[in-house]
C-alpha cells in the first residue's frame, strides 16, 4: 500500500484532520536529539544532513512523489507526468552538481563502473521496486509515513543489501569499464550542457511516447512543487555532504552492524575490506552521510504524516501483499548493491553528476520494472 493509498484510507476513516501528537513529538524530539549528538561532536554539516533528510521526508510525503508509480504509469498507459517531474528534479540538481563536482576541491559526483554488475543490479532493482511498491526513497518515506507494509520492505531491503555486499566483488570481477563523466570530456560547462541536453532528449522521447499513446505528459501541480523542492534539497545534501544524495549504502551499514552484533563476521569479506565500508562498519552510524539523511527522512515523513492525521491506524494488508513487500525489498537491496545504488544514488545522483552510468541504470531498471509489473498480479497487486 502506498502512502497515497494510506492517506486516502485514513482520511476516509477520520474526517477530522487532527495531529497525532505522540508520534509528531516523538519524530521531532528524535530529530533534535540526533542533531544535538552530532553537534556535540562539532559536526554542523552532519546536523545539516539530518535536517535536510527531515525536509526531504516532508517533501516526498506531502507531494506524494513516487518514482515507482510514475514509472509504472508510464510503462502501462504512457502517462508521463510523474516521469517528467523526476527529470525536472534531476535537471535542477545537475545545475549545481555538475560544475561544483568538477571544479571545487572536496566535492565529487556520483560515479560508478559500467559493466554486468550495473546492468544486472539495476534490472533486479526494477523488479523489486514494482513488487515492493516503492524504491529506496519511497521505502523510506512510506515506512516513515506509517505504512506497516513498507516497514517490512525496509527490513528486507536492509537484509538484501548485506547479501548484495557479499556478492558484489564477484560480479565486479565479470568486467567493466571505468566511469564516464561528461565533464571529463566536455569541460565543466560543456559537461553541464551535455547533461541538460541528455535530460531534455529523454524528456522529449518520454513526451513523444505519451502523445503517441494519447496519454497525459504534464505533471500535476503537487508533482511540480515536489520536484522543485526535492531538487533544491538534493543540492543542499550535495553541498553539506560533498557528494550527491545516496540512500542505500546507509541500509548496508545498518545491516552490517546488526549482522556483526549477531556474531556474523563480515569484516573478512572483500566488500567490507574496502576503505569506505570498513570505516563505516567500525565507526558511529552518525558519521555515514547516507545514514544521516536516511534517518532524517524517516523522521520527517513520520512528522509530516502525524501532523495531519492519526498515525499508522490502518490495518495490515493481506499476506500476499506483505510477501510482495518482503520479496521486493530483498530484490531491491541486492540489486542496489550490485547496481551501485537506487533511483536516488544511481539514477538521480548519477545523471545529475553527468555520469553515463545513471542513464544505463535507468534503462536497465525500467526493463526490470516491466517484468515486475507483470509479476504484481501474482501477489494481488494491480498492474496500474
Amino acid at each position, binding site marked *: 500500500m502506498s502512502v497515497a493509498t494510506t492517506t486516502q484510507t485514513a482520511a476516509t476513516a477520520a474526517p477530522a484532520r487532527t495531529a497525532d501528537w505522540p*508520534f509528531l513529538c516523538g519524530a521531532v524530539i*528524535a530529530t533534535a*536529539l*540526533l542533531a544535538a*549528538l552530532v553537534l556535540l*561532536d562539532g*559536526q554542523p*554539516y*552532519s546536523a545539516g544532513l539530518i535536517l535536510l533528510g527531515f525536509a526531504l521526508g516532508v517533501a516526498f510525503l506531502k507531494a506524494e512523489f513516487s518514482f515507482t508509480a510514475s514509472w509504472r504509469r508510464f510503462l502501462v498507459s504512457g502517462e508521463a507526468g510523474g516521469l517528467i517531474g523526476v527529470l525536472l528534479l534531476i535537471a535542477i540538481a545537475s545545475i549545481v552538481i555538475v560544475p561544483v563536482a568538477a571544479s571545487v576541491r572536496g566535492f*565529487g559526483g*556520483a*560515479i*560508478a*563502473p559500467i559493466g554486468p554488475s550495473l546492468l544486472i543490479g539495476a534490472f533486479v532493482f526494477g523488479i523489486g521496486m514494482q513488487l515492493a511498491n516503492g524504491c529506496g526513497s519511497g521505502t523510506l518515506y512510506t515506512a516513515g509515513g*506509517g505504512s*506497516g507494509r513498507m*516497514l517490512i520492505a525496509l527490513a528486507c531491503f536492509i537484509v538484501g543489501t548485506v547479501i548484495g*555486499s557479499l556478492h*558484489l566483488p564477484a560480479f*565486479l*570481477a565479470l*568486467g*567493466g*569499464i*571505468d*566511469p564516464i563523466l561528461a565533464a571529463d570530456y566536455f569541460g565543466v560547462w560543456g559537461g553541464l550542457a551535455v547533461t541538460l541536453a541528455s535530460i531534455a532528449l529523454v524528456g522529449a522521447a518520454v513526451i513523444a511516447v505519451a502523445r503517441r499513446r494519447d496519454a497525459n505528459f504534464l505533471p500535476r501541480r503537487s508533482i511540480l512543487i515536489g520536484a522543485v523542492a526535492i531538487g533544491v534539497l538534493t543540492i543542499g545534501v550535495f553541498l553539506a*555532504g*560533498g*557528494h550527491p544524495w*545516496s540512500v542505500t*549504502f546507509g541500509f548496508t551499514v545498518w545491516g552490517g552492524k546488526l549482522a556483526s552484533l549477531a556474531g556474523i563476521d563480515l569484516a573478512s569479506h572483500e*566488500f567490507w575490506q*574496502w*576503505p*569506505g*565500508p570498513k*570505516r*563505516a562498519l*567500525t*565507526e*558511529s*552510524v*552518525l*558519521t*555515514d*552521510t*547516507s*545514514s*544521516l539523511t536516511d*534517518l532524517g527522512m524517516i523522521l520527517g515523513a513520520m512528522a509530516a504524516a502525524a501532523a495531519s492525521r492519526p*498515525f*499508522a*491506524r*490502518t*490495518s495490515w494488508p493481506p499476506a500476499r501483499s506483505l510477501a510482495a513487500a518482503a520479496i521486493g525489498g530483498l530484490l531491491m537491496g541486492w540489486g542496489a*548493491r550490485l547496481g*551501485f*545504488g537506487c533511483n536516488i*544514488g*544511481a539514477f538521480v545522483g548519477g545523471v545529475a553528476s553527468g555520469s553515463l552510468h545513471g542513464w544505463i541504470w535507468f534503462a536497465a531498471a525500467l526493463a526490470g520494472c516491466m517484468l515486475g509489473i507483470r509479476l504484481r498480479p501474482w501477489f494481488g497487486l494491480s498492474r496500474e
Partner: protein
Amino acid sequence: MRVVYVIVFIVGIGAAIADHLASPSSGRAVSPEDFAGACAPCGAPCPSAKK
C-alpha cells in the same frame, strides 16, 4: 500497527544513539566515495585499478 511502530521507533532510535555513543567517530561524516580509489557510492574500486 501503532504498537509495532512504537517498538520499531524506540528500538531504532535507541540503537542509533547507542551505536553513536559506543563507536568511535573521527571527524566529519563521510561517504565511501571520499576514500582514495573509490569508484562508486559504495566504495567499490575502479575496474582499471583491478587490472
